[in-house]
């Protein structure tokens, strides 16, 4: 064996601001997204969608479309009767699940409901032929507002359930009735978390390719969950799972909207099998707004009980969830997450919540960045400010008084969770220092005295992430990794999490390079192909790094044990250590490199006892608990009395997401998350008119924040490692969004407080604020 001298790395890669391995292909226009896939003989699909929110289909004549030159086939609801229903993975006691076929049968339930699919040689031809289909609709009364849908006599979304209730759900902990009876103060508020449109910049898209001779179907889909999609679509199409391959090319953003299985995946699979040609469907932006899930959609009635010294005693919530017309994959489960997280970071020992899950003639709601937690945080953080105002206490002080103490972890909440670790005062104190809170309050007083509408808003948030222990998830909560060291010593990590912009090709390579002592350039991370990568769950709920990362870590530990065995064999010693990419005999100082070990393990001239050839390890990691990140955001805003426009003067975010693997990437997650929260607070709202027409049907009408509409974000951290996983990470994908909206709204309410304003519902548009200011604070 050689005595190669090796450079031992002075510092680890984990924790460093490393550039992203995924970026070179993305900045040169050479990455492949689903719409970039071209295949010989490819056909194009276009989907006819309902213009009505509720209607009976009287007649449907597709013949004129079929006669159009270039059209290969047209399919309607009757043709796809053999395709299984669009799946709902959530289960709740007594849940009403409407039959959800991939194409409408005799009735449509929301604007955009798919009615027929045209397949043609070219996408223009498909679109032209769509216009030739003759449908006679008999419009029916529709209801688009969940509170209206609960009124007696409201139109029934599904005729079989005239009360429009999909489910009710009750949860309580402690003795809420007693807490409210004994309280010195009770504050009540109705709080709306409006419907939002996720708006990933890449719309959804599917390419399906069927090879009849092999009886195998390949679906390329812009999704967050390739393996779950394979299982569910195989079921819908009646295929064996090993006959279906799902490939996730580059994904242009998801935010939960691609954490789903939609009608179109199975539909394109069906079409490809029928016509024997590859088929592509790319969602238009209008379809994306009408037919891809929306988020939020709450009307919440909160009550908070407290002693007059500010100690909180109880929290009650009646949550009206706008579900839309159907259940998508997780639709009914999302508001239950709000209930779990309703106590926030505070010692609420007595809580009670009732959810009313309500059908409306709208596209379903489902997981959108934060999924239930932004709504919960918005609620509790607004209530804390309302309580502070009622008690004439400083909102920061009230929070510090009621936080769960740093010495109380693991902390069992009144909603049945066990918070893993935390020091909730720390990020708030840090944020208060960063803005120089006391001086800031003085400056605010001066500004207000001179007539300026300046406000300071605080929000502190806790979030549940790293989903999660399998018993608490609908489809398994573990994650998988395979690490292979090739005969040359090159390292391949295959992760079952399917990252799509978060940067795990980089962070997982950092972990592997550290553990194996190899240069990061020698590591590649592979994901998103069910034929190559072992079964996995996917990326959502801030779980990619926090659950996928430990799987990689443990696979590496298994591999290191095997490397050591080969090292001992090759060095003919039992006193060997592996570090910095070499095995060293501690007695002789002789070394053997990882590449030499890899080569010997595959050549297999000699094998260590009870050891197989090769260097491959697979680990499926089941998390023992969720992880609970937290943080504090402070916003300084100013409202222009002439225009009602809100200017964010300062945005300070102090987040604690546990240990950080790559700060550069964490910053990006915080910035992006905050701006999505800002979108909800100030700009965005999915508006349906009373007939169920989506008024905000394109980017002209739906205000996604632009570069001119957002401030710099001052991001800082505290670090409380999670004891749940060996990396100490918690997850950061949704934190920014969760912390943001209450901080913004609290600041604007603070700016207008002297006018008697107690509460404002989002979005805080100039029109809304201008009218309010004109009316002297009277809504």
């Amino acid at each position, binding site marked *: 064996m050689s005595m190669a001298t090796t450079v031992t790395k002075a510092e680890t890669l984990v924790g460093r601001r490393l550039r992203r391995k*995924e970026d070179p292909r993305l*900045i040169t*226009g050479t990455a492949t997204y689903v719409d970039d896939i071209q295949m010989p003989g490819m056909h194009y699909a276009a989907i006819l969608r309902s213009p009505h929110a509720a209607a009976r289909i009287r007649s449907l004549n597709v013949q004129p479309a079929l006669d159009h030159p270039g059209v290969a086939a047209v399919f309607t609801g009757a043709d796809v009767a053999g395709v299984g229903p669009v799946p709902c993975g959530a289960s709740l006691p007594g849940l009403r699940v409407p039959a959800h076929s991939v194409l409408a049968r005799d009735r449509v339930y929301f604007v955009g409901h798919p009615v027929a699919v045209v397949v043609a040689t070219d996408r223009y031809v498909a679109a032209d032929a769509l216009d030739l289909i003759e449908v006679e609709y008999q419009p029916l009364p529709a209801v688009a507002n969940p509170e209206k849908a609960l009124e007696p006599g409201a139109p029934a979304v599904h005729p079989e359930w005239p009360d429009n209730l999909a489910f009710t759900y009750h949860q309580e902990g402690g003795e809420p009735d007693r807490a409210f009876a004994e309280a010195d103060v009770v504050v009540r508020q109705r709080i709306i978390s409006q419907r939002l449109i996720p708006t990933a*910049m890449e719309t959804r898209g599917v390419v399906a390719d069927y090879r009849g001779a092999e009886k195998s179907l390949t679906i390329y889909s812009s999704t967050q969950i390739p393996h779950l999609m394979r299982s569910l679509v195989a079921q819908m199409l009646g295929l064996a799972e090993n006959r279906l391959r799902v490939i996730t090319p580059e994904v*242009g953003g998801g935010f939960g909207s691609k954490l789903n299985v939609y009608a179109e995946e199975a539909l394109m699979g069906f079409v490809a099998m029928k016509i024997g040609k590859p088929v592509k469907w790319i969602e238009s932006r209008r379809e994306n707004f009408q037919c891809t899930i929306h988020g939020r959609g709450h009307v919440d009635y909160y009550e908070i009980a407290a002693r007059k010294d500010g100690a909180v005693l109880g929290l009650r919530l009646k949550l009206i969830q706008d579900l839309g017309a159907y259940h998508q994959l997780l639709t009914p489960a999302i508001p239950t997450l709000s209930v779990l997280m309703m106590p926030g970071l505070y010692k609420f020992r007595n809580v009670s919540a009732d959810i009313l899950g309500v059908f409306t003639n709208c596209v379903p709601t489902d997981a959108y960045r934060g999924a239930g937690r932004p709504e919960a945080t918005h609620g509790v953080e607004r209530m804390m400010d309302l309580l502070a105002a009622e008690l004439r206490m400083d909102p920061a002080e009230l929070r510090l008084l009621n936080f769960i103490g740093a010495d109380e972890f693991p902390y069992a909440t009144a909603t049945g969770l066990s918070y893993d670790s935390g020091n909730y005062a720390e990020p708030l104190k840090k944020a208060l220092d960063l803005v120089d809170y006391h001086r800031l309050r003085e400056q605010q007083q001066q500004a207000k005295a001179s007539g300026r509408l300046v406000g300071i808003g605080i929000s502190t948030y806790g979030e549940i992430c790293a989903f999660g222990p399998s018993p608490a998830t609908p489809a398994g909560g573990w994650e998988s990794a395979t690490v292979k060291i090739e005969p040359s010593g090159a390292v391949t990590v295959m992760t079952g999490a399917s990252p799509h912009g978060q940067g795990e090709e980089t962070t997982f390579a950092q972990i592997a390079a550290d553990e194996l002592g190899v240069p990061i350039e020698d590591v590649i991370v592979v994901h998103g192909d069910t034929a190559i990568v072992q079964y996995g769950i996917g990326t959502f709920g801030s779980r990619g790094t926090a659950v996928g990362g430990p799987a990689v870590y443990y696979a590496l530990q298994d591999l290191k044990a095997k490397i050591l065995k080969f090292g001992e064999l090759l060095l003919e010693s039992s006193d060997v250590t592996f570090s910095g990419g070499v095995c060293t005999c501690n007695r002789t100082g002789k070394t053997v490199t990882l590449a030499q070990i890899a080569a010997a393990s595959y050549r297999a001239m000699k094998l260590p006892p009870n050891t197989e050839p090769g260097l491959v390890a697979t680990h499926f990691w089941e998390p023992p608990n969720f992880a609970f990140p937290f943080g504090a955001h402070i916003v300084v805003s100013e409202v222009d009395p002439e225009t009602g426009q809100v200017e964010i003067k300062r945005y300070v975010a102090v987040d604690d997401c546990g240990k950080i693997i790559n700060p550069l990437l964490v*910053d990006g997650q915080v910035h992006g998350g905050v701006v999505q929260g800002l979108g909800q607070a100030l700009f965005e709202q999915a508006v349906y008119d009373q007939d169920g027409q989506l008024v905000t049907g394109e*980017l002209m009408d739906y205000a996604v924040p632009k570069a001119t509409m957002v401030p710099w974000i001052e991001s800082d951290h505290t670090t409380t490692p999670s004891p749940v996983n060996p990396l100490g990470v918690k997850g950061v994908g949704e934190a920014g969004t969760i912390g943001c909206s209450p901080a913004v709204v609290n600041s604007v309410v603070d700016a207008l407080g002297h006018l008697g304003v107690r509460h404002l519902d989002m979005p805080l548009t100039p029109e809304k604020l201008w009218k309010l200011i004109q009316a002297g604070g009277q809504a």
Partner: protein
Amino acid sequence: MHRKVPVQTTINGEPVEFLCEPRQSLLECLRDVIGLTGTKEGCNDGNCGACTVLMDGRIVNSCLVLGVEAQGAQITTVEGIARGNQLHPVQQAFLQNAALQCGFCTPGFIVAAKALLDQEPAPSEERIRLWLANNLCRCTGYDKIVRAVEQAAQELREVKA
């Protein structure tokens, strides 16, 4: 099916001839006819900027330009921003700052930012934000994008000085 017309144009410095239907957009011609798929479609109605290309030195939403209008024009797409393996300073700065996540909006931002710096060597932060307001990004919150453009501007000034 509509009759196709021939178009002669220059793309990323190379003469290109292609056939398209008169109703096809430049975006579709680039992506589907010519095979330059770096330019992205985010809305097809002029509201997202993912399809931004340079046409005779001006930035345009290629989804709002017809393919036939490319006749005789000079077009630059994201594929033509680097010189061989040599990344443009805007690309370098995006890489260094990780000014992207999913990358779908990135080609549009890179083309738009390059166009800005071609004509204004020292744009203010406000100017950068205004210039890029035609381009939507849902992932980054724009923070690092604006920083990357500021940094690229500085590097370009240093190279010239």
